[in-house]
């Protein structure tokens, strides 16, 4: 299964990945309607520390703490992708408390949300990878 990897020496801190992620998961077709004048809710976060920066999103761990800790049994790993079943999630956020990479957050609908590699949203394949202008985010 392919994974998203990040090369910090190529990251430009442009945060385009955050915007494109929020757009891809917004449900809007129009990018302005999705993002303009709204707080954005990306599932990828650019961290800056001194001169370095890098984007962090779900690692789809081999031993996923979010899956093991979920009180509702709403998170599972299927075909290499850790997924949240929104229909079962009760929004307790034990997954946010458990993820060592800070890659799970509260979503706009009260359920937890995280990167699911754009498999089910409008992107179809990871949009952060596709749009990173310096190819700092790669899928391999």
């Amino acid at each position, binding site marked *: 299964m392919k994974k998203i*990897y*990040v*090369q*910090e020496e190529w990251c430009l801190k442009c945060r385009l990945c955050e915007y494109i992620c929020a757009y891809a998961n917004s449900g809007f077709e129009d990018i302005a309607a999705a993002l303009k004048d709204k707080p954005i809710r990306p599932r990828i*976060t650019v*961290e800056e*520390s001194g001169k*370095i920066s*890098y984007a*962090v999103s779900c*690692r789809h761990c081999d031993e996923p*703490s979010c899956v*093991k*800790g979920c*009180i*509702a*049994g709403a998170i599972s790993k299927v075909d290499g992708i850790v997924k949240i079943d929104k*229909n*079962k999630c*009760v*929004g*307790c*956020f*034990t*997954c*946010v*408390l*458990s*993820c*060592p*990479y*800070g*890659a*799970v*957050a*509260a979503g706009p609908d009260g359920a937890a949300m995280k990167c699911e590699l754009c498999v089910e949203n409008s992107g179809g394949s990871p949009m952060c990878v596709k749009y990173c202008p310096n190819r700092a985010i*790669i899928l*391999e």
Partner: protein
Amino acid sequence: MDYVIIGNSIAAAGCIEGIRRADQNGKITVVGAEPYHVYGRPLISYLLEGKTDLERIKYRPADFYEKNCCTLVKGERALKIDAQKKRVTLSGGAVLPYDRLAIATGSRPFVPRIPNLEKYEYHTFMTLDDALKLQEKIKTVPNARVLIFGAGLIGLKCAEAIHKSVGEITVADMADRVLPSILDHDGAEIIKKHLEGYGLKFLLSTAANPDSFDFDILCVCTGVVPETELAKECGAEVGRGIFVDGKSKTTVKDIYAAGDCTESYSEVTGKRAAIPILPNAYIQGETAGINMAGGIASFDSALPMNAIGFFGKHILTAGVYEGEAVRAKSSEYRKIFVKDGKLKGFIFIDDFKRAGIYTALIRDGGDISGVDIDGLAENAGLNLFPKNFRDEVLRAKN
């Protein structure tokens, strides 16, 4: 190989999945006293609120037992373990032989000695049946006045669950604050005010005595105790819980235990304790299963951690509240505890972004003496960890 698991809840589900990671063929029999498919126990409050239903409350898909080739004996209790002959006697009379046994009997409600309690009918709030029974009772009493003993996690979840369908709720507790197991004084004040905004009445620092109150329905939610009888009777070392090591082994050969019924030593806290939370139950169960099936797994980093919400307000906490307390300036309540250059614990209310990084920092015991603590209270990133760790996590192998 014959595996028997006593209990059919979270630790048992972990154990089944653990066994199947290492052994596809062995025979697994699960004995559960409750007459149900495994369900998310913490979801019983969401069920009464209408936020889940009897289908979605299932902790694993409907074909879970079938897919894992398990025989589920539900609605029966294991009555006795014969550790010499390696067999378990069930309430229905069957005797199950085992090569490896897991005890996953969880906990039961702890009801302290409360004066005059015997005169009243009362409810507990632990199982699906408890929840359904309470729901039925509420239907028979319009605008019921409900009295809850216990302002802990279960008592307050119970209150939230029923608040729309009853007249009034009073919560009484001996403690001087709500949620004493996870909140400090200031945090508890915030939550208490929030709950009072929903009409809940509190009587804190108050001894439980039903004779002193007017009420229609009484719920006793004063904590849980590990269910250890079977283990004790078969000679296993039992303190508060059944003692297990990092492999989830008890002191009796070929008998493992996991979840709320156990206590174990944690490298993180440096203590032997029972930590009755769901993530521990699953991971201990999985660890037991893998080891039972001849694989290698260990878990010695249990720590108290809770994520819980009441009427839209969320509380995420972990660790212990020792050392210097530092609050984030930008949030209502985001507090971290630092001692000897290490993060020891945190309490986040509502602003809980990236909480898991803090949990990981506590768990790893990493040195943060060079870190700006005020900044850390505000937000955290992977820069807190050594670069080689970050590289391993984020970078392609090149």
